[in-house]
């Protein structure tokens, strides 16, 4: 029929072989989705506070979890912020403000109240519109470094749906020890019948480094981004299958996308229009993981869930 060159046959057969090899995942059990039991909202008096409380309240209704609010501004403004925020809501505990800077207050309250999920505005104490993607703020930086529990950073204010997070995007860039934890939280937070997308992202810098190193080792090696995307998918095949099984077991839709950084950014814009929740795992001992998480938070206009390990 047609006359593929030997090089094309080689490339296509190799690509197809790699795809089949991805199915060699052995036993992959579904994840046990993680859901919060005690949610602490840290308020800063910014326009994001209302969204934080609304999201927390929706989660409380869905999971039956306990809810507390903390005025974690550096100094008390005397405007009774927590009362204002919880007006009309039943059974919301208002925590006594501990001493110290905002991040110290939040960490202290989280520990003493024994919460398992933090919700806070980001950037802390400032409006998202003023700072945009330039900074996630010191409070978040410190919490990312010290908080033992997952947190949801609320970026731009919005009115959450009755069952929030119809769409969850779980991003992975490379091997990450917190991946399973983050995936479990992502699966737990998704609304019933919602849509979870595992997004494997090939960083441009990483690709260029690998390409240069491979080229230096052997000039004959033809290395392209597609190969690296395939390798990324192959190395996360077990996670993919695990999430697939989790989706079947817990009645949500799941898909995998493998893309380069620029494509991921384009897709983010679409996801943000539906107030998707972005989920990431933070491997504390890995500098690259810190960079990924901070970049993810800075670029997002939608809430970002960070699960640390």
């Amino acid at each position, binding site marked *: 029929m047609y006359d593929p060159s030997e090089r094309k046959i080689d490339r296509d057969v*190799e690509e197809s072989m790699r795809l089949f090899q991805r199915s060699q995942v052995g036993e992959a059990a579904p994840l046990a989705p993680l859901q919060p039991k005690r949610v602490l909202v840290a308020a800063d008096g910014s326009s994001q506070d209302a969204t934080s409380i609304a999201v927390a309240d929706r989660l409380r209704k869905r999971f039956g979890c306990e809810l507390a609010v903390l005025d974690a501004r550096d100094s008390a403004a005397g405007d009774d912020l927590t009362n204002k925020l919880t007006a009309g809501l039943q059974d919301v505990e208002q925590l006594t403000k501990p001493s110290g800077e905002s991040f110290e207050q939040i960490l202290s309250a989280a520990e003493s109240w024994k919460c398992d999920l933090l919700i806070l505005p980001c950037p802390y104490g400032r409006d998202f519109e003023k700072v945009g993607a330039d900074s996630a703020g010191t409070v978040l930086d410190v919490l990312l470094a010290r908080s033992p529990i997952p947190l949801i950073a609320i970026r731009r204010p919005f009115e959450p749906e009755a069952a929030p997070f119809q769409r969850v995007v779980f991003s992975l860039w490379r091997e990450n020890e917190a991946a399973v934890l983050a995936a479990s939280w992502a699966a737990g937070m998704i609304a019933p019948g919602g849509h979870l997308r595992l997004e494997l992202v090939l960083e441009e810098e990483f690709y260029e480094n690998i390409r240069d190193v491979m080229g230096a080792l052997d000039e004959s090696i033809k290395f392209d981004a597609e190969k690296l995307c395939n390798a990324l998918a192959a190395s996360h095949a077990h996670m993919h*299958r695990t999430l697939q099984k989790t989706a079947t077991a817990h009645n949500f839709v799941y898909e995998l*996308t493998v893309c380069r950084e620029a494509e991921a950014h384009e897709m983010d814009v679409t996801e943000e229009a539906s107030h998707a929740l972005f989920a990431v795992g933070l491997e504390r001992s890995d500098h690259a993981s810190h960079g990924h998480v901070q970049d993810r938070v800075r670029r997002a206009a939608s809430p970002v869930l960070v699960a640390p390990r």
Partner: protein
Amino acid sequence: MEVLLAVESGHSPGWVMALFALGMLLTYVGVAFERFHKTVAALSGAAVLTALAVRLEVFKYEEIHAILAKDLNIFGVIVGTGILVDVTSRSGLFHFLSMGIVRATAGRAAALYFAICVLTFVFVAVLTIVPAMLILSSLVLVICRSLDYPAKPFLLSVAICANSGAIVTFASGLPNIMIGTAAGIPYVHFLMVSAPYAVVSLVIAIGVLRLVFRNDLAWRQDEATQQALQARIAEFDPWALVESRWVLVRSGVILGLTILGFAFARMVGVGMDFVAMCGGTAALLFAGKSVEDTIAKVNWTVILFFVGLFVVIGCVEHTGALELVATRVVDLSGQKMAALVPLLSLFAGVGSAIVDNIPVAATLIPVVQNIHALGVPEEPLWWAVILASNLGGNATPIGSISCVIALHTLKKEAGVTVGWGEFIRIGGLIMVLQVAGVMAYLLAIYYAGAFPEL
């Protein structure tokens, strides 16, 4: 003056016919031996013959556009099915199905072997040879490595069974599309005439291959071996190949609807090209992830190859040479179907084994049309060309793209070289049996008066 008279009578002088026939032959030599790229050979032949045709006043230059215009529908089918097949393949549907079926064999050699042969047959029928071969070759290599089976019996069998799959439907192979379009053969006629013989030819192929490879595979395995194989094959999970179930389902539905569309195209008064383009567009709309990438995967090499080929054949046809061949063939056979069917089958089979089945089919289309114009029933002749030109490729390592892909992959990935002699002993025997079967099958249908009329 002689030239002008010839043009007016519709025939060129003998030396012009001979010159153009030589030009066509040289083009086919270029196609067969790949000194040049096939497409370059066809386009070069087209350029030379067009210039000669205009210079010798065989036709006016504008006639070239008319030659190509009558084959536009073939391009529509190639583009539409190309997009659809690419999108479906990317969805992982066929990788998923094939791995699922392989897993169901529990890795036992005999079951695996027959499953791979049948899978090849079905996949080629649906996807055409090249995409199906890429999937099956890679599957065989991965599974054979994992289960410690030799790849050679599997890959050679895949190569040969693929040519049986190519005769199942209108859209299973390019010769079918070309002849089906030129002769106006409805899709369902393929299911009535061609598909049953496809199964017969598959049985012939598997029978011979089973015999040839009787000592190359452990056809019987004890309980302990079977359990070990089962454990190793269980490591493969076909669902891990699926990135999105919705894309998978949508791709499957669009493919299924397109096949149905082919079947009912004539009934609703549209061409196969329209159905193929609708299928391709639906795939881009509902199941395609990257429109640009998918359109870029359309096989423009084939389309340009066809452009060159159609022009070459159109030029030769305008000299009257092919009509002359048809007259001689009819004279030789005494208008007897018992002679015409074997003659065409033999020519199509042997020609395909040496050159390529597409030029052979393309050349025989005007020949059969001319034979039919002389009052001979056309149905058995079309089917003879379709069946024999597809199955003829089994005879040599270069006769079919399935053999080219399998032998190259076997050498590259498994380090096994299969020589011409060894291949011809296996494939040649199968081709002879299959083409002999074609003759008997078609003559039996003809004398039973059971050919669906066109």
